[in-house]
């Protein structure tokens, strides 16, 4: 069961930037992102998030987001998704980085979640 990482931000550049950071430590982990609205404005799009879930090669995804409405759109996309996606209310950069580093070392989801617990901020 391979783990993938999903990053969702209100701004495409933030999402893409976080992924650039993660790739440095987790080149073999499937990481996809969704940032901004369908029109490229600041916001989040359930359709974009659904596409990022579908494009991820992981069997099971760990999802990280920035602000409130990203979480709501993520939750809706998760309800429509055909693979398990777990959502974490942790600091976006630190949380995603921790998860990606551990996933790259084949650490289990349970152990990753234990490391994420202290990063919970929302």
């Amino acid at each position, binding site marked *: 069961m391979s783990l993938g990482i999903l990053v969702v931000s209100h701004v495409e550049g933030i999402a893409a930037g976080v992924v650039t950071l993660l790739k440095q430590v987790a080149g073999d982990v499937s990481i996809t992102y969704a940032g901004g609205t369908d029109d490229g404005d600041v*916001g989040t799009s359930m359709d974009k998030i659904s596409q990022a879930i579908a494009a991820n090669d992981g069997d099971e995804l760990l999802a990280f987001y920035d602000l409130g409405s990203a979480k709501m759109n993520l939750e*809706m996309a998760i309800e429509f998704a055909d693979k398990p996606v777990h959502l974490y209310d942790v600091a976006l950069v630190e949380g995603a980085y921790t998860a990606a580093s551990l996933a790259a070392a084949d650490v289990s989801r349970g152990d990753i979640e234990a490391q994420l617990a202290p990063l919970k901020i929302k």
Partner: protein
Amino acid sequence: MLNGATATKWLDLFAATIEEKKDYLSELDTPIGDADHGGNMARGLTAVKEALAKLADPDLTTVFKTTAMALISKVGGASGPLYGTAFLEMAKKSKDTDDLGELLTAALAGIEKRGGAKVGDKTMVDVWTPLVQAVKDGKLDQAAIDDAVNATAPLVAHKGRASYLGERSAGHLDPGSMSSGYLFSALLNAGVLA
């Protein structure tokens, strides 16, 4: 009487109000949010209006579901999933009943589940909660709507973008509460309650 035709009229009236008031909604969203509520809602309701116009004699469930999907995919801000979930829950419930009070109760439960806000958090929940009750009691009027919207002004926000401002959010009307007030006013003016 609520059916596909009157529900469409309700949403067309809501879309017209949002279009007319979009600058005001964004103004409300400027001191305590990200100044996009009017634009986001107008984009969503334009999509709703277009989608509904393509339906021929739709039933209630189809009207609500079409509205939900347009809002979810077009609004962009937090209002998309929140209003979208409200209409999605009404679509589900409308398979069993056309009772407006029951439908709106299901919508409110969906909003609370999606956003996690409670009464007093300075969100649309503060408007929906008393107004859904007013509909059930047969007491919905414009005065009740105005009271519910205005009551959000002194509150300190605990959810949504305004919550980042903490105490500084007090003294401002909540934009999502204002747009929710327009939704209930449209309900009055669509003659659904008669």
